[in-house]
Protein backbone atom coordinates (compact mmCIF):
# COMPACT_ATOMS: atom_id res chain seq x y z
CA UNK A 1 0.00 0.00 0.00
CA UNK A 2 1.32 3.43 -0.83
CA UNK A 3 2.30 5.67 2.08
CA UNK A 4 -0.12 8.48 2.63
CA UNK A 5 1.52 11.90 2.25
CA UNK A 6 0.69 13.04 5.78
CA UNK A 7 2.70 10.19 7.30
CA UNK A 8 5.64 11.01 5.05
CA UNK A 9 5.98 14.30 6.89
CA UNK A 10 6.54 12.48 10.17
CA UNK A 11 10.23 11.66 10.76
CA UNK A 12 10.91 8.05 11.69
CA UNK A 13 12.42 9.14 15.01
CA UNK A 14 9.23 10.89 16.03
CA UNK A 15 7.08 8.02 14.80
CA UNK A 16 9.04 5.54 16.91
CA UNK A 17 8.73 7.84 19.91
CA UNK A 18 4.96 7.83 19.44
CA UNK A 19 5.12 4.03 19.31
CA UNK A 20 7.00 3.95 22.62
CA UNK A 21 4.45 6.31 24.20
CA UNK A 22 1.72 3.94 23.01
CA UNK A 23 3.63 1.03 24.56
CA UNK A 24 3.99 2.95 27.82
CA UNK A 25 0.22 3.58 27.96
CA UNK A 26 -0.43 -0.14 27.53
CA UNK A 27 2.14 -1.20 30.11
CA UNK A 28 0.77 1.23 32.71
CA UNK A 29 -2.73 -0.04 31.95
CA UNK A 30 -1.60 -3.63 32.52
CA UNK A 31 0.28 -2.85 35.71
CA UNK A 32 -2.22 -0.63 37.45
CA UNK A 33 -5.09 -2.94 36.55
CA UNK A 34 -3.55 -5.38 39.02
CA UNK A 35 -3.11 -2.85 41.77
CA UNK A 36 -5.84 -0.22 41.48
CA UNK A 37 -8.90 -1.57 39.73
CA UNK A 38 -10.68 1.79 40.12
CA UNK A 39 -13.02 2.58 37.23
CA UNK A 40 -11.50 5.11 34.83
CA UNK A 41 -7.95 5.03 36.21
CA UNK A 42 -6.58 4.03 32.80
CA UNK A 43 -7.61 7.47 31.51
CA UNK A 44 -4.87 9.02 33.69
CA UNK A 45 -2.08 7.18 31.86
CA UNK A 46 -3.82 7.38 28.51
CA UNK A 47 -4.11 11.15 28.65
CA UNK A 48 -0.58 11.72 29.98
CA UNK A 49 0.80 9.43 27.27
CA UNK A 50 -1.22 11.06 24.50
CA UNK A 51 -0.49 14.62 25.61
CA UNK A 52 3.24 14.03 26.05
CA UNK A 53 3.40 12.27 22.68
CA UNK A 54 1.60 15.14 20.96
CA UNK A 55 3.69 17.82 22.65
CA UNK A 56 7.11 16.25 22.00
CA UNK A 57 6.48 15.74 18.30
CA UNK A 58 5.66 18.39 15.73
CA UNK A 59 3.00 16.33 13.99
CA UNK A 60 -0.54 17.58 14.23
CA UNK A 61 -2.06 14.09 14.40
CA UNK A 62 0.57 12.80 16.84
CA UNK A 63 -1.91 11.93 19.60
CA UNK A 64 -4.22 10.15 17.16
CA UNK A 65 -1.37 8.08 15.75
CA UNK A 66 -0.30 7.19 19.31
CA UNK A 67 -3.90 6.25 20.08
CA UNK A 68 -4.11 4.02 17.00
CA UNK A 69 -0.83 2.31 17.88
CA UNK A 70 -1.92 1.86 21.52
CA UNK A 71 -5.26 0.45 20.38
CA UNK A 72 -3.57 -2.01 18.02
CA UNK A 73 -1.15 -3.06 20.75
CA UNK A 74 -4.05 -3.53 23.18
CA UNK A 75 -5.85 -5.65 20.59
CA UNK A 76 -2.81 -7.83 20.07
CA UNK A 77 -2.56 -8.37 23.81
CA UNK A 78 -6.28 -8.92 24.35
CA UNK A 79 -6.63 -6.10 26.87
CA UNK A 80 -9.57 -4.09 28.02
CA UNK A 81 -13.26 -4.54 28.43
CA UNK A 82 -14.29 -3.49 24.96
CA UNK A 83 -13.12 -6.36 22.77
CA UNK A 84 -12.37 -5.00 19.28
CA UNK A 85 -13.89 -1.67 20.38
CA UNK A 86 -10.80 -1.06 22.49
CA UNK A 87 -9.31 0.84 19.56
CA UNK A 88 -11.91 3.55 20.07
CA UNK A 89 -11.00 3.91 23.75
CA UNK A 90 -7.63 5.29 22.72
CA UNK A 91 -8.40 6.91 19.39
CA UNK A 92 -11.43 9.01 20.37
CA UNK A 93 -9.73 10.87 23.28
CA UNK A 94 -6.67 11.28 21.04
CA UNK A 95 -8.81 12.88 18.35
CA UNK A 96 -10.22 15.28 20.94
CA UNK A 97 -6.69 16.26 22.03
CA UNK A 98 -5.47 16.74 18.46
CA UNK A 99 -8.60 18.69 17.58
CA UNK A 100 -8.23 20.95 20.62
CA UNK A 101 -4.57 21.59 19.85
CA UNK A 102 -5.38 22.42 16.24
CA UNK A 103 -7.56 25.25 17.55
CA UNK A 104 -5.42 26.22 20.56
CA UNK A 105 -1.82 25.02 20.02
CA UNK A 106 -0.64 26.15 23.48
CA UNK A 107 -3.56 24.61 25.36
CA UNK A 108 -1.48 22.03 27.22
CA UNK A 109 0.97 24.56 28.65
CA UNK A 110 -1.39 26.16 31.12
CA UNK A 111 -3.14 24.21 33.85
CA UNK A 112 -6.55 25.80 33.19
CA UNK A 113 -6.68 25.08 29.46
CA UNK A 114 -5.10 21.68 29.97
CA UNK A 115 -7.90 20.81 32.40
CA UNK A 116 -10.48 21.81 29.77
CA UNK A 117 -8.82 19.66 27.09
CA UNK A 118 -8.40 16.73 29.50
CA UNK A 119 -12.02 16.90 30.66
CA UNK A 120 -13.19 16.96 27.05
CA UNK A 121 -11.00 13.96 26.26
CA UNK A 122 -12.02 12.18 29.46
CA UNK A 123 -15.71 12.72 28.76
CA UNK A 124 -15.40 10.54 25.66
CA UNK A 125 -15.57 7.58 28.03
CA UNK A 126 -19.18 8.62 28.79
CA UNK A 127 -20.11 8.62 25.10
CA UNK A 128 -18.31 5.35 24.36
CA UNK A 129 -20.02 3.65 27.28
CA UNK A 130 -23.36 5.09 26.15
CA UNK A 131 -22.88 3.81 22.57
CA UNK A 132 -21.83 0.40 23.86
CA UNK A 133 -24.93 0.21 26.05
CA UNK A 134 -27.19 1.12 23.14
CA UNK A 135 -25.62 -1.59 20.96
CA UNK A 136 -26.07 -4.15 23.74
CA UNK A 137 -29.75 -3.33 23.88
CA UNK A 138 -29.78 -1.99 27.45
CA UNK A 139 -32.65 -0.09 28.97
CA UNK A 140 -32.32 3.60 28.01
CA UNK A 141 -32.21 4.89 31.59
CA UNK A 142 -29.67 2.27 32.66
CA UNK A 143 -27.52 3.15 29.65
CA UNK A 144 -27.26 6.76 30.77
CA UNK A 145 -26.68 5.85 34.43
CA UNK A 146 -23.98 3.33 33.57
CA UNK A 147 -22.29 5.77 31.21
CA UNK A 148 -22.39 8.43 33.92
CA UNK A 149 -20.77 6.11 36.47
CA UNK A 150 -18.02 5.21 33.97
CA UNK A 151 -17.64 8.84 32.94
CA UNK A 152 -17.27 10.26 36.46
CA UNK A 153 -14.27 8.07 37.30
CA UNK A 154 -12.74 8.91 33.98
CA UNK A 155 -13.24 12.65 34.52
CA UNK A 156 -11.61 12.54 37.96
CA UNK A 157 -8.53 10.82 36.56
CA UNK A 158 -8.50 13.16 33.56
CA UNK A 159 -8.39 16.07 35.98
CA UNK A 160 -5.43 14.53 37.81
CA UNK A 161 -3.62 13.99 34.50
CA UNK A 162 -4.26 17.61 33.52
CA UNK A 163 -2.66 18.79 36.75
CA UNK A 164 0.53 16.84 35.95
CA UNK A 165 0.92 17.55 32.26
CA UNK A 166 1.85 21.29 32.12
CA UNK A 167 4.59 20.86 34.73
CA UNK A 168 5.85 17.76 32.93
CA UNK A 169 5.98 19.62 29.63
CA UNK A 170 7.87 22.54 31.17
CA UNK A 171 10.47 20.15 32.55
CA UNK A 172 10.79 18.39 29.21
CA UNK A 173 11.27 21.74 27.52
CA UNK A 174 13.98 22.68 30.01
CA UNK A 175 15.80 19.48 29.07
CA UNK A 176 15.61 20.19 25.36
CA UNK A 177 13.15 17.39 24.52
CA UNK A 178 10.50 19.91 23.45
CA UNK A 179 11.75 22.70 21.26
CA UNK A 180 10.01 25.89 20.24
CA UNK A 181 9.58 24.48 16.73
CA UNK A 182 7.82 21.47 18.19
CA UNK A 183 5.43 23.67 20.10
Amino acid at each position, binding site marked *: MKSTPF*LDRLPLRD*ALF*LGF*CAGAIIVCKILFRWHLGISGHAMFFTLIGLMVARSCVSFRWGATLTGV*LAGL*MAMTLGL*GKGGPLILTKFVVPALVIDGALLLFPMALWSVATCIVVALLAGSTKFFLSWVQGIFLGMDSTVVVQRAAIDGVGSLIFSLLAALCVP*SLLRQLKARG*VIRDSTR
Partner: protein
Amino acid sequence: MKRKNVDALFMVAPILETPRTRINIPAGVHLFITIVLSSSAFLVRDVQWISTMIAVNLGWMAVCGVPWRQLKRLVRPFAMQTVMLLALYGFKQGQQGVLPAVQVSLQLMLTLMPPIVLSWCVPASQMARTFSRWMPDQAAFVLSASLHFFPMVLSEWRILYQAQQLRGVPLSWKQLWRPWHWRLVLRCLVVPAVVIAMSLAHEIALAARARNFRSGKRSCWMEEI
Protein backbone atom coordinates in the same frame (compact mmCIF):
# COMPACT_ATOMS: atom_id res chain seq x y z
CA MET B 1 11.39 -14.02 39.71
CA LYS B 2 10.18 -12.38 42.83
CA ARG B 3 8.15 -9.32 41.97
CA LYS B 4 8.83 -6.37 44.15
CA ASN B 5 6.83 -3.15 44.16
CA VAL B 6 6.54 -1.15 40.98
CA ASP B 7 9.33 -3.24 39.49
CA ALA B 8 6.55 -5.54 38.34
CA LEU B 9 5.86 -2.87 35.74
CA PHE B 10 8.87 -4.01 33.80
CA MET B 11 8.17 -7.70 34.04
CA VAL B 12 5.37 -7.50 31.49
CA ALA B 13 7.95 -7.12 28.74
CA PRO B 14 8.08 -10.84 27.87
CA ILE B 15 4.36 -10.97 27.11
CA LEU B 16 4.96 -8.69 24.15
CA GLU B 17 7.11 -11.31 22.50
CA THR B 18 6.08 -14.76 23.74
CA PRO B 19 4.73 -16.95 20.92
CA ARG B 20 2.00 -19.32 22.11
CA THR B 21 0.58 -20.65 18.86
CA ARG B 22 -1.50 -23.77 19.40
CA ILE B 23 -3.23 -24.18 16.07
CA ASN B 24 -2.13 -23.42 12.58
CA ILE B 25 -4.51 -20.64 11.57
CA PRO B 26 -3.21 -17.52 9.83
CA ALA B 27 -3.26 -14.50 12.13
CA GLY B 28 -5.54 -12.59 9.75
CA VAL B 29 -8.17 -15.35 9.85
CA HIS B 30 -7.85 -15.52 13.62
CA LEU B 31 -8.39 -11.79 13.86
CA PHE B 32 -11.45 -12.02 11.59
CA ILE B 33 -12.98 -14.81 13.71
CA THR B 34 -12.32 -12.74 16.85
CA ILE B 35 -14.07 -9.70 15.41
CA VAL B 36 -17.04 -11.79 14.24
CA LEU B 37 -17.42 -13.56 17.60
CA SER B 38 -17.03 -10.33 19.59
CA SER B 39 -19.44 -8.41 17.39
CA SER B 40 -22.01 -11.16 17.59
CA ALA B 41 -22.27 -10.43 21.33
CA PHE B 42 -23.97 -7.15 20.38
CA LEU B 43 -26.55 -8.95 18.25
CA VAL B 44 -27.75 -11.74 20.56
CA ARG B 45 -30.62 -10.56 22.73
CA ASP B 46 -32.16 -13.63 24.39
CA VAL B 47 -31.00 -16.25 26.84
CA GLN B 48 -31.04 -19.07 24.30
CA TRP B 49 -28.76 -17.29 21.86
CA ILE B 50 -26.47 -16.06 24.60
CA SER B 51 -26.07 -19.64 25.88
CA THR B 52 -25.32 -20.79 22.35
CA MET B 53 -22.68 -18.09 21.91
CA ILE B 54 -21.06 -18.95 25.25
CA ALA B 55 -20.86 -22.57 24.10
CA VAL B 56 -19.39 -21.49 20.75
CA ASN B 57 -16.76 -19.34 22.50
CA LEU B 58 -15.82 -22.11 24.94
CA GLY B 59 -15.56 -24.50 22.00
CA TRP B 60 -13.30 -22.03 20.20
CA MET B 61 -11.11 -21.81 23.29
CA ALA B 62 -10.87 -25.59 23.44
CA VAL B 63 -10.04 -25.87 19.74
CA CYS B 64 -7.28 -23.28 20.14
CA GLY B 65 -5.88 -25.04 23.20
CA VAL B 66 -6.28 -22.04 25.50
CA PRO B 67 -5.99 -23.14 29.15
CA TRP B 68 -9.22 -22.71 31.12
CA ARG B 69 -7.37 -20.72 33.75
CA GLN B 70 -7.30 -17.87 31.25
CA LEU B 71 -11.01 -17.44 31.99
CA LYS B 72 -9.94 -16.06 35.36
CA ARG B 73 -9.20 -12.82 33.50
CA LEU B 74 -12.95 -12.47 32.94
CA VAL B 75 -14.03 -12.95 36.54
CA ARG B 76 -13.25 -9.48 37.83
CA PRO B 77 -14.74 -7.38 34.98
CA PHE B 78 -17.76 -9.70 34.85
CA ALA B 79 -18.34 -9.45 38.60
CA MET B 80 -17.96 -5.65 38.61
CA GLN B 81 -20.29 -5.17 35.65
CA THR B 82 -22.86 -7.58 37.06
CA VAL B 83 -22.97 -5.83 40.43
CA MET B 84 -23.30 -2.42 38.78
CA LEU B 85 -26.00 -3.54 36.35
CA LEU B 86 -27.95 -5.43 39.04
CA ALA B 87 -27.98 -2.27 41.12
CA LEU B 88 -29.07 -0.07 38.22
CA TYR B 89 -31.73 -2.44 36.85
CA GLY B 90 -32.85 -3.32 40.38
CA PHE B 91 -33.30 0.36 41.19
CA LYS B 92 -35.50 0.83 38.14
CA GLN B 93 -37.31 -2.49 37.70
CA GLY B 94 -36.99 -4.24 41.06
CA GLN B 95 -36.76 -8.03 40.93
CA GLN B 96 -37.69 -8.04 37.26
CA GLY B 97 -34.42 -6.32 36.52
CA VAL B 98 -32.27 -9.28 37.55
CA LEU B 99 -32.63 -11.18 34.28
CA PRO B 100 -31.83 -8.29 31.91
CA ALA B 101 -28.88 -7.27 34.14
CA VAL B 102 -27.36 -10.75 34.02
CA GLN B 103 -28.11 -10.97 30.30
CA VAL B 104 -26.25 -7.72 29.51
CA SER B 105 -23.35 -8.79 31.75
CA LEU B 106 -23.06 -12.03 29.83
CA GLN B 107 -23.16 -10.13 26.55
CA LEU B 108 -20.30 -7.94 27.79
CA MET B 109 -18.37 -11.06 28.77
CA LEU B 110 -18.94 -12.47 25.29
CA THR B 111 -17.19 -9.45 23.77
CA LEU B 112 -14.13 -10.21 25.93
CA MET B 113 -13.71 -13.94 25.37
CA PRO B 114 -12.48 -13.93 21.74
CA PRO B 115 -9.69 -11.36 22.35
CA ILE B 116 -8.34 -13.56 25.15
CA VAL B 117 -8.09 -16.46 22.70
CA LEU B 118 -6.48 -14.20 20.10
CA SER B 119 -3.84 -12.85 22.45
CA TRP B 120 -3.02 -16.36 23.65
CA CYS B 121 -2.61 -17.88 20.20
CA VAL B 122 -1.04 -15.13 18.11
CA PRO B 123 2.24 -13.49 19.24
CA ALA B 124 2.32 -9.72 19.15
CA SER B 125 4.92 -9.57 16.38
CA GLN B 126 2.81 -11.80 14.11
CA MET B 127 -0.24 -9.71 14.86
CA ALA B 128 1.71 -6.57 14.04
CA ARG B 129 2.61 -8.06 10.66
CA THR B 130 -1.04 -8.85 10.05
CA PHE B 131 -2.10 -5.30 10.84
CA SER B 132 0.70 -4.03 8.65
CA ARG B 133 -0.96 -5.51 5.55
CA TRP B 134 -3.71 -2.91 5.83
CA MET B 135 -1.51 -0.06 6.98
CA PRO B 136 0.71 2.38 5.10
CA ASP B 137 4.29 1.07 4.89
CA GLN B 138 5.80 3.52 7.34
CA ALA B 139 3.02 3.10 9.91
CA ALA B 140 3.38 -0.68 9.64
CA PHE B 141 7.12 -0.43 10.17
CA VAL B 142 6.61 1.87 13.15
CA LEU B 143 4.16 -0.57 14.74
CA SER B 144 6.42 -3.59 14.32
CA ALA B 145 9.57 -1.68 15.31
CA SER B 146 7.85 -0.23 18.40
CA LEU B 147 6.81 -3.70 19.51
CA HIS B 148 10.25 -5.12 18.66
CA PHE B 149 12.22 -2.48 20.55
CA PHE B 150 9.78 -1.83 23.39
CA PRO B 151 11.30 -4.50 25.67
CA MET B 152 14.60 -2.62 25.31
CA VAL B 153 12.91 0.64 26.33
CA LEU B 154 11.34 -1.14 29.29
CA SER B 155 14.68 -2.54 30.31
CA GLU B 156 16.22 0.96 30.26
CA TRP B 157 13.29 2.30 32.29
CA ARG B 158 13.70 -0.53 34.76
CA ILE B 159 17.34 0.36 35.38
CA LEU B 160 16.42 4.03 35.68
CA TYR B 161 13.70 3.16 38.18
CA GLN B 162 16.11 1.07 40.20
CA ALA B 163 18.86 3.70 40.16
CA GLN B 164 16.42 6.43 41.23
CA GLN B 165 14.91 4.32 43.98
CA LEU B 166 18.36 3.63 45.43
CA ARG B 167 19.13 7.33 45.10
CA GLY B 168 16.26 7.98 47.49
CA VAL B 169 13.36 8.95 45.23
CA PRO B 170 10.12 7.73 46.91
CA LEU B 171 8.98 5.06 44.49
CA SER B 172 7.58 2.23 46.58
CA TRP B 173 3.80 1.69 46.60
CA LYS B 174 3.55 2.93 50.16
CA GLN B 175 5.34 6.16 49.29
CA LEU B 176 3.41 6.64 46.06
CA TRP B 177 0.11 6.91 47.94
CA ARG B 178 1.28 10.29 49.28
CA PRO B 179 0.48 12.90 46.62
CA TRP B 180 3.24 15.29 47.75
CA HIS B 181 5.76 12.74 46.46
CA TRP B 182 4.35 12.81 42.94
CA ARG B 183 6.18 15.97 41.94
CA LEU B 184 9.51 14.31 42.72
CA VAL B 185 8.45 11.15 40.89
CA LEU B 186 7.52 13.22 37.86
CA ARG B 187 10.85 15.03 37.95
CA CYS B 188 13.16 12.10 38.69
CA LEU B 189 11.42 9.24 36.91
CA VAL B 190 8.90 10.33 34.29
CA VAL B 191 10.98 13.12 32.74
CA PRO B 192 14.16 11.01 32.33
CA ALA B 193 11.99 8.13 31.08
CA VAL B 194 10.68 10.35 28.28
CA VAL B 195 14.25 11.49 27.56
CA ILE B 196 15.36 7.84 27.35
CA ALA B 197 12.48 6.94 25.02
CA MET B 198 13.27 9.91 22.78
CA SER B 199 16.96 9.10 22.71
CA LEU B 200 16.36 5.42 21.88
CA ALA B 201 13.89 6.40 19.17
CA HIS B 202 16.56 8.69 17.74
CA GLU B 203 19.20 5.92 17.79
CA ILE B 204 16.89 3.35 16.20
CA ALA B 205 15.74 5.76 13.50
CA LEU B 206 19.36 6.58 12.71
CA ALA B 207 20.17 2.87 12.49
CA ALA B 208 17.24 2.33 10.11
CA ARG B 209 18.34 5.24 7.92
CA ALA B 210 21.92 3.92 7.95
CA ARG B 211 20.44 0.80 6.31
CA ASN B 212 18.79 3.01 3.66
CA PHE B 213 15.32 3.10 5.20
CA ARG B 214 13.14 5.76 3.61
CA SER B 215 9.44 6.36 3.44
CA GLY B 216 7.85 4.72 0.46
CA LYS B 217 7.52 1.29 -1.03
CA ARG B 218 9.49 -1.54 0.57
CA SER B 219 9.76 -5.16 -0.46
CA CYS B 220 9.51 -8.08 1.97
CA TRP B 221 11.86 -10.89 2.95
CA MET B 222 9.81 -13.95 2.09
CA GLU B 223 11.37 -16.31 4.59
CA GLU B 224 10.51 -14.33 7.67
CA ILE B 225 9.10 -16.71 10.26
